[in-house]
């Protein structure tokens, strides 16, 4: 374990197309408690309520959905920052759902996370050098030429001036900060990076820089991304496959173009049609579906199909029976709906 490069070779070499991460029935219920001394549980926020998906080696799975639907929670569960209340997470064949912190250590190198907020994801009291060196520090890894050299290489790779090693995060702009976060995530040559809305907080021009960077890195390092975002355009741009979440459930999952061109779930339809297209003429062309109301509270989600309260196609059965996520249309395309759409949107 001398250099980061040999490091990478020593570890099981991922083969493109293999399943890297498999999530089954993943659940996260946040207990809602009451009481001052003796707390009792009075309910649960069902942030993630039984979802299944896989991420293959080197691919990008996009995860979209409205605010509060459980995207970040999923990301945090996958990186084991949060303890699942149900289901399993299998990484390269190992069940890591409930591994202890010690046992998790080796996997920490393989799964990394990038956060949304470039301000809160960097410790303002540490220099960039320290921040990017933290993975080596924590994992106790020595690199040839010292940590500093490794860090500077990383900085150069993500487009930061290596001489800025000693600067503090507040001296960087949002986009640069996001690069610092990416460098940190890259340090240990992970196989999977969970990107929790890494570009939502950035200006369009900067957003494009970062998206391009992520693209390049994926190619260079054979990375797989679990890419969380609420912006359907960004997701379309970066993902190989896309999963749509609604209230803690995956309602539809498919290959990218399949999903955008042949969406089956009404919710996906609504989402797609709500995106304002930067093209004055298209406004008239596109069909408009306007959802009413807001996402219901995950504290007590609607019975049956969770989308039925906002769905124009809802019938009695939707309240009684929860539609399973079933394959529909092209292979790998599944949707959870009693009355899937037949037409295409875009």
């Amino acid at each position, binding site marked *: 374990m001398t250099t980061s490069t040999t490091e990478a070779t020593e570890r099981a070499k991922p083969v493109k197309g293999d399943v890297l991460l498999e999530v089954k029935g993943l659940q996260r219920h946040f207990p809602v408690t009451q009481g001052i*001394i003796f*707390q009792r549980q009075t309910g649960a926020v069902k942030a993630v309520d039984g979802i299944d998906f896989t991420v293959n080696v080197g691919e990008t799975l996009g995860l979209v959905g409205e605010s509060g639907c459980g995207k970040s929670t999923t990301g*945090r569960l996958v*990186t*084991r*920052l949060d303890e699942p209340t149900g289901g399993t997470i299998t990484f390269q064949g190992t069940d890591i759902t409930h591994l202890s*912190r010690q046992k*998790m*250590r080796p996997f*920490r190198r393989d*799964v*990394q*996370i990038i*956060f*949304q*907020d470039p301000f*809160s*994801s*960097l*410790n*303002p*009291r*540490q*220099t960039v050098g320290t*921040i990017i060196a*933290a*993975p080596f520090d*924590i*994992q106790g890894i020595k690199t040839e030429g010292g940590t500093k050299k490794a860090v500077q290489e990383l900085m*150069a*790779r*993500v*487009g*930061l*001036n290596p001489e*800025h*090693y*000693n*600067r*503090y995060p*507040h*001296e*960087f*702009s*949002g*986009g*640069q900060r996001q*690069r610092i*976060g990416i460098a*940190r995530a890259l340090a*240990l040559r992970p196989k999977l990076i969970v990107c929790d809305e890494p570009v939502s*907080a*950035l*200006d369009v021009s900067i957003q494009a*820089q970062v998206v*391009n*960077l992520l693209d*390049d890195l994926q190619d260079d390092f054979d990375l797989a991304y679990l890419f969380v975002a609420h912006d359907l355009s960004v997701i379309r741009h970066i993902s190989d496959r896309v999963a749509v979440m609604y209230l803690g459930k995956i309602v539809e999952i498919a290959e990218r173009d399949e999903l955008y061109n042949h969406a089956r779930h009404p919710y996906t339809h609504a989402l797609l049609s709500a995106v304002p297209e930067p093209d004055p003429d298209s406004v008239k062309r596109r069909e408009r579906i306007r959802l009413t109301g807001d996402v219901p509270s995950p504290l007590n989600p609607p019975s049956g199909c969770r989308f039925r309260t906002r769905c124009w196609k809802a019938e009695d059965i939707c309240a009684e029976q929860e539609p399973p996520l079933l394959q529909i249309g092209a292979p790998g395309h599944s949707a959870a709906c009693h009355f899937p759409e037949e037409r295409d949107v875009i």
Partner: protein
Amino acid sequence: MTLGATEAQSPEGGLPSDHIAETAEAKQIEGRSLGQIAWARLKKDKLAIASACIIILIIAVAIFAPLIVKISGFGPNEFNQTDASGKSLLDTANGGFPNSGLWGSGMSKEHWLGIEPQTGRDIFARLVYGTRTSLLVALGGTVLAVLIGTVVGMVAGYFRGWVDTLLGRLMDIMLSFPSLLLIMALTPVVADRAKDMFGVEDTNALRMGVLMFVLGFFGWAYLARIVRGQTLSIREREFVDAARSLGAGPAYVIFKQILPNLLPTLLVYTTLLIPSYITAEAGLSFLGVGVKEPTASWGKMISDASNWYEVDPLYLFFPGLALFFVVLAFNLLGDSVRDALDPRAGRS
């Protein structure tokens, strides 16, 4: 995205990576931490510098008290009822206040700030030694309070759950104590207990130790609450998650990630706690539960002098002024430190 002014000052873009070229006029700025920025701001703040000077001076006085007193020529506890020639310095027929010097203060070439009524002790020497008492007690109490408060607050905030509940209740209880009253009542008691348990005689050193202990013991809860709140919120910041996702354990997170972010709070709180403890020590000595006789303490001096302010106003004036200045200096410095550390900056 809020762009702070400092932010806007570093106008360079991303650096050589695919097509992102370095902007031409990327200015080379020294890597400056928030602490360094604060320090730079502090250095520009004249009031802060002045008060820091006063504080350093006071600390020097406290440390070198014996030397200073050697120069002035009179010990803090020496009675000087007569001068070298045997002439009485006190008007013994009228209650024993100094019969010379400005406003009956006994000020003279020998006794720079006059002498104490009835005993003739040198006020300058007592003032100098009183500095020791004040600072020692205040600093000791502060260190203790900050230490306990930080540890308890961080532990409660980091581990949450039942640990937090337990410590939170403890803080509630500590905060519900009428602390001044208990400090007052407990100082003698604790001194007694210490005597009993450790066989330490109720000396002045013990008394001061007890004062520090009691002040610290009743002072930590408030800070702990603040630290707990901050820890809770810092813990939610994503850089903590980042560290955890790299496999960092609680110790790493607490000491490397959270503690440095608490430092400004702790610093501000410390600079504010010190003057309040200086006042508290003076108050306790004033009330008669402070240090032991004949140890000089400003509060004790004020308490004594309060009987004499009419015939010997300067006796009250000097310790009062000393107390005022030190507290003022610490408060000023505290304000400046807070402003300097405040990212929103700008006192005006």
